[in-house]
C-alpha cells in the first residue's frame, strides 16, 4: 500500500472569491495581496495538502511582457508566500502553466523560445526555494518537451507534468494519453498525470490508459465537475468529488488534488480516502509516437525509407536548394501509402547535417503525424533531430563498436528514444548468424547499462545483396530468428537492399520480406510506395492474426477487380495546352514526356508550357475562369516541370531556372495561402523560388537575399498590423545595400499603400507577380 500524497485545490477560483477581478492576472494580484495568497495556502495545508502549488501558474516572460513586472519579482513574491505558509508542513511546487501562445508549426512560438521562457522560470524558481516544478494544464506535448528539457538542463528540481484532456482522450492540440505517457516516461519525469478540463469520473479511463504506458507515479487533479458555459461556475460538491476520487487509489494512483472550482473542503474530503494499492508488475506497452499518433511495437510496423538522399539525385538537389516542400511531399506520400514510421536521413556532403535535421524534422511534423526515426551516424545531428521531434523517436543507429555505443547511447537515454543496433563492429559485418547474434547481445548489454530498457533496443541483422553475396540471405534470416526468439527483441531490416542489381527486384524483395517477417522481423524499412511491398505486409498481418478479422486486409482489397486496368491513353487527341487548361496533372506529365522525345527541355518549357500558362492567366484576368481553376492549371503544368526537373537531375545537369525569387510572409504574420499561390505560379514559369515560409524575421529575409544573391523579393502580409513589419523588412533590405526589387501583396494592401511603405511593385494577384518577374528577371 502507498500513503496518499495530497496536493492542494484551486487557486484561481479561490482568489476570485477573495476579490480578484475578472481578467486580472492572479500572480500580480498575489504580489499586491501576499497575505490573501498565504491564507489560501494555509487553508489547504490545514485541510491536508502536503504539496502546495505556488501562485505562479502564468508568471512567464511572455504573459508578463506588458505588465512592468519581471519574472523574478513575481516568482519571488509568490513563492515566498507559499514558503511562509508551508513551513515544514508541506512542500512547495513551482507551478508552471502553458506560455499562452501556440507553438510552431501551427503557432509562431519556436521551440527554442519556449525553452528559454521555461528555463528562466525554473532557474528563478529553484533559487527562490521551490521543492519541485509542476508543469500543469498543458495541452501541447511539444511545449511540454521544451519545458521538461528546460527544467532538466537548468535545475535539479524533481519534474512533474500533468496535461488537460477532453473526453475523447485528446488535448486541444490533439496529444493522446499514450503519446504523453510514452514521451514523458522516456524523458524521465518524476510523476505525471491529468489535471483540469474534466471531473474525476471523466478522467478515470484516461488514467487507466496512462498506467498501461508508464510505471511512474500518477497524479490526478480534476475540476469540480464541468463548468456552466454562461457563468463558468462548477457545480460538484466536496462529498461527491471525494466519492468519485475514491476510484483512483485502488488503481495505484496516490497523488491526488483538485483543480478549478475545488476548495479546502474538497481536499479535506480526499484526506479521508484509504491508502493507494501498489501498482502491479505488469508488462508496459511500448512504441514510438508523435504527439497525436502512437505506433505500438506489437506487430509489423512499416518504416518508410524515402526521406534519404543516398543514390537519389533529385532528393540531393532538394537538400542543396533547401526545398523543404519536396521533402514534405515525400513524407505525405509515404503516410498516404501506409507507412507507420518515417526514417529521416539528410546526410549529404556540404550540408550542415544538424541544422538540416532540425529543419526537416520540423517540416515533416507540420504535415504528417507519423512518429520519426532519426537516421544519422553523427551524434550532433542525432541530438538535433531528437530535440526537434515532437514525441518519442527511434535513433538509427548504433553498432557494436564501443566508441559508437559510448557516444550515442547517452543521447538515446536522455531523450527517451528507442534505438536501432546494427550487428556490425570495427571488424565489419560478421559472416555468420551466430556472430551477428553475439554482437546483438553486446549492444543490449551496453544499452541496459545506460538504463535503456531492452524493449527499446531494435536489432538490425543487416541485409546484404544476393547478387553479390548470395549465401548471406539465409544467414540474415537465421540471425533475425535467433534475436527474436532467444533475446525477445524487436528486429529491423532495410529490406530493399536484398535485390539490388537484379531484374524484377520486387519479386526478390517481397519474397525476402515475407520470410523475414515469418522469422521475427517486425520493423521492415521499405519503400511503402511500392504496392507489392505494402500488399505483402497487409497479407502477413492477416495471416499472423495481427489484423483481427482480416478487417484491414479486406478494406484494402475489397472491391478491387483483378482484371488489368486499361491504361489511360496518353491524352488521346489532347494537346498539352488543353491538358493544362483543364488542370489535368497526369495527362500533362504524359504529354510532356511525349514532347521531350523530339524537343529539348528548354524548348518544351518556353514553347509549350509557359505559353499555355499565359493563356490560362489571360482567361483568369478576363474572369473566364476563377481562382481554383487557375491553380489547378498551374499544378498541371507543375507535373510537366517536375518531369523535366527529374530528367535534368538524373543527367546531373544544372537545374533550369529563369532566375531566383525570394518569397516570405513577413514577421508576425502566419497567413501564407496567398504567398503559396504565388509560389506555385512562379515556379511554373520556370523561376526558382526560395520560400522562406511564414512569420519570417526581417533579418532572415535580408540574409537570405544577400547569401543567395536574389534580385527579386516578394513579401506578403494579410493584416494591417503586420504591414508594419513589411515596411521594416523593405527598409532593412534597402539599408543593406543589396540591389533588389521588392514586390508586395496581401489583402489589406493597395498600390498607394505599397508605394508608401517603399515597395517597387504592388501585385494584386499571382498573375501580376509573374508580370513583375518577367519585367525584372526576364
Amino acid at each position, binding site marked *: 500500500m502507498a500513503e496518499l500524497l495530497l496536493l492542494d485545490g484551486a487557486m484561481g477560483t479561490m482568489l476570485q472569491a477573495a476579490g480578484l*477581478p*475578472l*481578467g486580472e492576472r492572479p500572480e500580480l494580484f498575489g504580489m499586491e495581496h501576499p497575505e490573501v495568497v498565504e491564507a489560501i495556502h494555509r487553508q489547504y495545508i490545514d485541510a491536508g495538502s502536503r504539496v502546495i502549488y505556488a501562485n505562479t501558474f502564468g508568471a512567464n516572460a511572455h504573459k508578463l511582457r506588458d505588465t512592468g513586472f519581471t519574472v523574478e519579482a513575481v516568482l519571488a513574491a509568490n513563492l515566498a508566500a507559499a514558503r511562509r505558509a508551508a513551513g515544514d508542513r508541506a512542500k512547495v511546487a513551482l507551478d508552471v502553466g*502553458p506560455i*499562452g*501562445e*501556440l507553438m510552431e*508549426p*501551427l*503557432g*509562431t512560438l519556436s521551440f527554442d523560445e519556449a525553452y528559454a521562457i521555461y528555463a528562466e522560470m525554473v532557474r528563478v524558481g529553484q533559487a527562490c526555494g521551490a521543492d519541485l516544478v509542476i508543469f500543469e*494544464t498543458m*495541452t501541447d506535448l511539444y511545449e511540454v518537451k521544451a519545458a521538461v528539457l528546460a527544467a532538466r538542463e537548468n535545475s535539479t528540481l524533481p519534474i512533474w507534468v500533468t496535461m*488537460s484532456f477532453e473526453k475523447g482522450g485528446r*488535448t*486541444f*492540440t*490533439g496529444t493522446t494519453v499514450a503519446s504523453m505517457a510514452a514521451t514523458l516516461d522516456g524523458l524521465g519525469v518524476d510523476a505525471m498525470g491529468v489535471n*483540469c*478540463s474534466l471531473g474525476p469520473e471523466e478522467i478515470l479511463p484516461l488514467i487507466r490508459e496512462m498506467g498501461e504506458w508508464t510505471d511512474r507515479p500518477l497524479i490526478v487533479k480534476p475540476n469540480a465537475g464541468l*463548468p456552466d*458555459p*454562461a*457563468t*463558468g461556475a462548477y457545480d460538484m460538491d466536496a462529498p461527491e468529488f471525494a466519492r468519485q476520487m475514491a476510484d483512483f487509489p485502488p488503481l495505484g494512483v496516490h497523488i491526488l488534488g483538485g483543480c478549478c472550482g475545488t476548495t479546502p473542503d474538497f481536499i479535506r474530503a480526499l484526506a479521508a480516502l484509504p491508502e493507494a494499492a501498489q501498482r502491479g508488475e505488469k508488462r508496459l506497452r511500448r512504441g514510438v509516437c508523435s504527439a497525436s499518433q502512437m505506433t505500438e511495437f506489437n506487430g509489423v510496423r512499416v518504416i518508410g525509407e524515402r526521406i534519404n538522399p543516398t543514390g537519389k539525385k533529385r532528393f540531393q538537389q532538394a537538400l542543396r536548394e533547401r526545398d523543404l*516542400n519536396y521533402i*514534405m*511531399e515525400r513524407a*505525405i506520400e509515404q503516410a498516404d501509402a501506409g507507412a507507420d514510421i518515417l526514417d529521416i536521413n539528410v546526410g549529404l556532403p556540404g550540408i550542415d547535417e544538424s541544422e538540416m535535421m532540425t529543419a526537416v524534422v520540423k517540416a515533416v511534423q*507540420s*504535415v*504528417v*503525424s507519423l512518429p520519426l526515426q532519426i537516421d544519422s551516424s553523427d551524434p550532433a545531428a542525432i541530438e538535433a533531430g531528437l530535440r526537434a521531434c515532437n514525441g518519442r523517436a527511434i535513433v538509427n543507429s548504433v553498432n557494436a563498436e564501443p566508441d559508437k555505443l559510448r557516444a550515442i547511447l547517452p543521447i538515446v537515454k536522455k531523450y527517451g528514444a528507442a534505438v536501432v543496433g546494427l550487428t556490425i563492429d570495427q571488424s565489419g559485418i560478421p559472416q555468420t548468424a551466430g556472430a551477428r547474434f553475439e554482437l546483438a547481445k553486446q549492444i543490449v548489454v551496453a544499452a541496459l547499462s545506460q538504463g535503456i530498457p531492452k524493449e527499446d533496443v531494435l536489432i538490425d541483422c543487416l541485409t546484404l545483396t544476393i547478387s553479390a553475396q548470395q549465401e548471406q540471405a539465409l544467414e540474415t534470416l537465421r540471425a533475425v530468428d535467433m534475436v527474436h526468439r532467444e533475446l525477445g527483441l524487436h528486429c529491423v531490416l532495410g529490406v530493399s537492399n536484398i535485390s539490388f542489381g537484379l531484374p524484377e527486384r520486387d519479386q526478390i524483395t517481397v519474397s525476402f520480406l515475407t520470410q523475414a517477417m515469418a522469422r521475427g522481423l517486425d520493423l521492415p524499412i521499405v519503400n511503402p510506395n511500392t504496392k507489392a511491398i505494402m500488399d505483402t505486409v497487409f497479407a502477413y498481418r492477416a495471416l499472423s492474426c495481427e489484423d483481427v478479422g482480416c478487417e484491414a486486409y479486406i478494406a484494402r482489397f475489397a472491391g478491387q477487380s483483378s482484371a488489368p486496368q486499361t491504361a489511360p491513353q496518353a491524352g488521346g487527341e489532347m494537346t498539352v495546352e488543353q491538358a493544362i487548361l*483543364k*488542370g*489535368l496533372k497526369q495527362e500533362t506529365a504524359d504529354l510532356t514526356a511525349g514532347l521531350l522525345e523530339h524537343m529539348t527541355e528548354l524548348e518544351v518549357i518556353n514553347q509549350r508550357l509557359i505559353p499555355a500558362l499565359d493563356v490560362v492567366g489571360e482567361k483568369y484576368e478576363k*474572369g*473566364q*475562369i*476563377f*481562382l*481554383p*481553376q487557375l*491553380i*489547378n492549371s*498551374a*499544378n498541371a503544368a507543375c507535373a510537366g516541370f517536375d518531369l523535366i526537373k527529374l530528367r535534368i537531375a538524373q543527367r546531373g545537369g544544372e537545374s533550369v531556372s529563369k532566375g531566383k525569387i525570394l518569397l516570405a510572409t513577413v514577421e*508576425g*504574420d*502566419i*497567413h*501564407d*495561402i496567398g504567398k*503559396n*499561390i504565388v509560389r*506555385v505560379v512562379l515556379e511554373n514559369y520556370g523561376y526558382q523560388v526560395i520560400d522562406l515560409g511564414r512569420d519570417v524575421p526581417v533579418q532572415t529575409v535580408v540574409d537570405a537575399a544577400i547569401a543567395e544573391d536574389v534580385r527579386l523579393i516578394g513579401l506578403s502580409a494579410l*493584416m*494591417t*498590423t*503586420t504591414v508594419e513589419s513589411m515596411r521594416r523588412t523593405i527598409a532593412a533590405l534597402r539599408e543593406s545595400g543589396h540591389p533588389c526589387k521588392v514586390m508586395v501583396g496581401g489583402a489589406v494592401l493597395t498600390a498607394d499603400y505599397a508605394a508608401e511603405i517603399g515597395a517597387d511593385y504592388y501585385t494584386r494577384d499571382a498573375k501580376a507577380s509573374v508580370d513583375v518577374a518577367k519585367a525584372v528577371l526576364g
Partner: protein
Amino acid sequence: MEARLTELNRNEILLYLGHRGQAIPPELEEQMERCIRTVTAAARPRLVYRRLAVRDGELDALPGLGNDLRAILRPCREAVLMAATLGPLVEQVLMRSGVTDMADAVIMDACASAAIENVCDHFEFDLRAELKREGCFLTDRFSPGYGDFPLERQNALCDTLNAARRIGLTVTENHIMIPRKSVTAVLGIAENPQPLRARGCAVCSMFLNCPYRKEGETCHG
C-alpha cells in the same frame, strides 16, 4: 450550448473563392466535394461564451472596444462575449494541402471559413431562441476588425473568456488567433428588437438549415 457544425453552403464557399458565375467543370465540382468532406471531417468545433454586464454601451469587464460597438450596445444592459474555433486539425489539413495541392488548399481554406461561420451562426441562432424565452433580443454579432473594433483587443477578449484553457484558442503578439479558423465576437442583449443587417440568404452559412427560410421568412426581418 454546444458548438454545432452542419452541412456547408456551397454558394458561400464559391463566394469566398471569388466565383462570378463561371461554368464549373465536373472535375472541379468533385474537387470541391472532396475538400468539403476533408475539412468537415477535420473540424472539432468548440466554443466558449459568457454573459457580461454592459453600462453606457461598454462592457464592464472589457471597456474600450470602439465607437461602433458602443452604438450597437447602447440599448443593452448585458452582452454575450463569445469565441469559437474549428480546432488545430483543420489547420494541419490546410498546411498539408498547401504542400500537396495549392488548389485544394485554396478551396479548403474557403470551406474552413464557411465552417467557422456556420458554427457561429448556429450559436447565434440558439442564443436568439434562448433569449426570446426570456423576452430579450440580440443585436448583430460584432467582431474585432469590424468598423473601429480594434484588432489589438483580441488578446484581452480571449483572456476574459479564458479561451486558451477552455477551448484551446490562443492569440499571438500580433493579435492573430491560432488556430486561425476561429472567431471572437460580442452580441448585445436588448429588451427590444434590434435592427439587424441583411446578409443575403443564398450565401449564408445557415442556408441549408435555416428555419426562417423554411417558413419563407428571414432572420433579419
